[in-house]
């Protein structure tokens, strides 16, 4: 999760530069929808429950939800209470309540996030999900995947593979239009990614 605190902020800050413009992001999401459709059919999971991770994941999930023509409302997941760095950076000030419209028990879930790096957000999201019930299966779809995995978490569907230096981070600005920025942490301060992590 690398979204800005304010969803309306068009650009995430001065230390960043454009990585993929809106057209490229939308094209990647269209590809993701296609791949998801194929994968879900192959698995026989015809009416999946789609859940976006706050905040950028929800934006991507909204697009996928429309492209796949899903009728059930989208679920929102906030992982702030399940983060593993609570002991390091304290609690994120603005927690948007998780909202799952229907029970997750025995459902095929499509979990959506914007950027996958360490895998820690997904670990936390899975924990939240299982505190709501026992899904039949969980697929992971991410807009951008990059190096830096710290946990054995791999996505099932990927919009784009980003090639970044270890210190750099990716940041999705939205909700409309969606644009991907790259940037390096400001010197001497907490990284933007850390500030913006959910």
């Amino acid at each position, binding site marked *: *999760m*690398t979204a800005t605190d304010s969803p309306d902020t068009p650009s995430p800050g001065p230390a960043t530069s454009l990585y993929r413009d809106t057209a490229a992001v939308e094209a990647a999401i269209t590809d993701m929808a296609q791949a998801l459709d194929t994968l879900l059919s192959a698995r026989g999971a015809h009416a999946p429950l789609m859940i976006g991770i706050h905040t950028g994941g929800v934006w991507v999930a909204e697009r996928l939800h429309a492209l796949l023509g899903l009728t059930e409302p989208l679920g929102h997941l*906030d992982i*702030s*209470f*399940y*983060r*593993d*760095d*609570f*002991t*390091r*950076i*304290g*609690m994120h*000030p*603005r*927690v*948007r*309540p*998780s*909202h799952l419209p229907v029970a997750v028990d025995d459902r095929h879930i499509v979990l959506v996030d914007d*950027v*996958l*790096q*360490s895998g*820690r*957000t997904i670990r*936390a999201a899975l*924990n939240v999900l*299982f*505190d*709501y*019930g026992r899904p039949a299966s969980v697929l992971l779809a991410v807009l951008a995947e990059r190096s*830096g995995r710290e946990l054995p978490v791999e996505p099932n569907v990927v919009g784009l593979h980003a090639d970044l230096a*270890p*210190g750099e*981070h*990716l940041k999705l600005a939205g909700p409309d239009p969606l644009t991907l920025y790259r940037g390096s*942490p400001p010197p001497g301060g*907490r*990284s*933007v*990614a*850390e*500030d*913006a*992590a*959910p």
Partner: protein
Amino acid sequence: MIAPTPTQQEQAAALQLDAQGNLKHFLTLDGLERSLLTDILDRAEGFLGVARQAVKKVPLCRGKIIANLFFETSTRTRTTFELAAKRLSADVLNLNISTSATAKGETLLDTLRNLEAMHVDMFVVRHADSGAAHFIATHAAAPVAVINAGDGCYSHPTQAMLDMFTIRAHKGGFEGLTVAIIGDVLHSRVARSQITALNTLGVAEVRAIGPSTLVPARSEEALGVRVFHDLRAGLRGVDVIILLRLQHERMDGGFLPSEHEYFHLFGLTDKRLGLAAPDAIVMHPGPINRGVEMDSSVADGERSVILEQVSNGLAVRMAVMSMCIGTQNLWLHAAGQQPPAEVGDV
């Protein structure tokens, strides 16, 4: 009741906040800024959702030990603090001190040292003497956090914050609101904290309504309220009505002729409720005395949000507890001198 001088306010703020302005202890609302109070309310909003989970727990305070030190009996407050701690995955010790060691002659400080030796991370303190929670916060070894669950006639900050949460949920905000607090303002730590919170959050007017024996002299300037001794006049046009419990246990003189007389003059009935704004809500910190502070028809009526206050109390207490524990974690982490993670949680 005397309003704190600025120095006292500064002292209270200094004791409660770390250098970055994070909450270390939660003892009083005196000296806390509007932004911090709003922050607590915003965070509490997020905890409401935990009640909708199949597993009604989040792991924020896993491995922490929270001790409820209740030197004064309480059911509701102790239960909600206990449940809030358990929903944060903390381990909870309930110590009913009024029947234990202090009765055998142990001093408060010795009790405290013993609990510290058990590696308790947070104390939730209720005491019949004003200032007890401050005393414990001053003497507790860092980074033990202290939350005031009510001390004497002084302060009950989590109760006031859950009331603010309930008001905001119904009214959308605080601007332009007129709030009436009715009853035993003199003995009420709840009223005192509520008045501070309401004024800090910027309501238009706080009214204190009650017999002259139960509203402190010089309240207008000392507390920042408008005083009414006539219920009907005071209720006119108010948006929020907060009733206070008559505190028999703190009344040692002839404050009232009788409960019947009190109800006759200050009890809230449906007819009197009609004087307030049409969408006015009725609140009470509990436990309610039916037929004394209000009619049963008001307590159970559609304008009453009394049970909602209890549910909101859980979310607000989870927010305050996790904020204090979070700050404590920051210190511990700093003491370990490990650099914060370079890369965010992505």
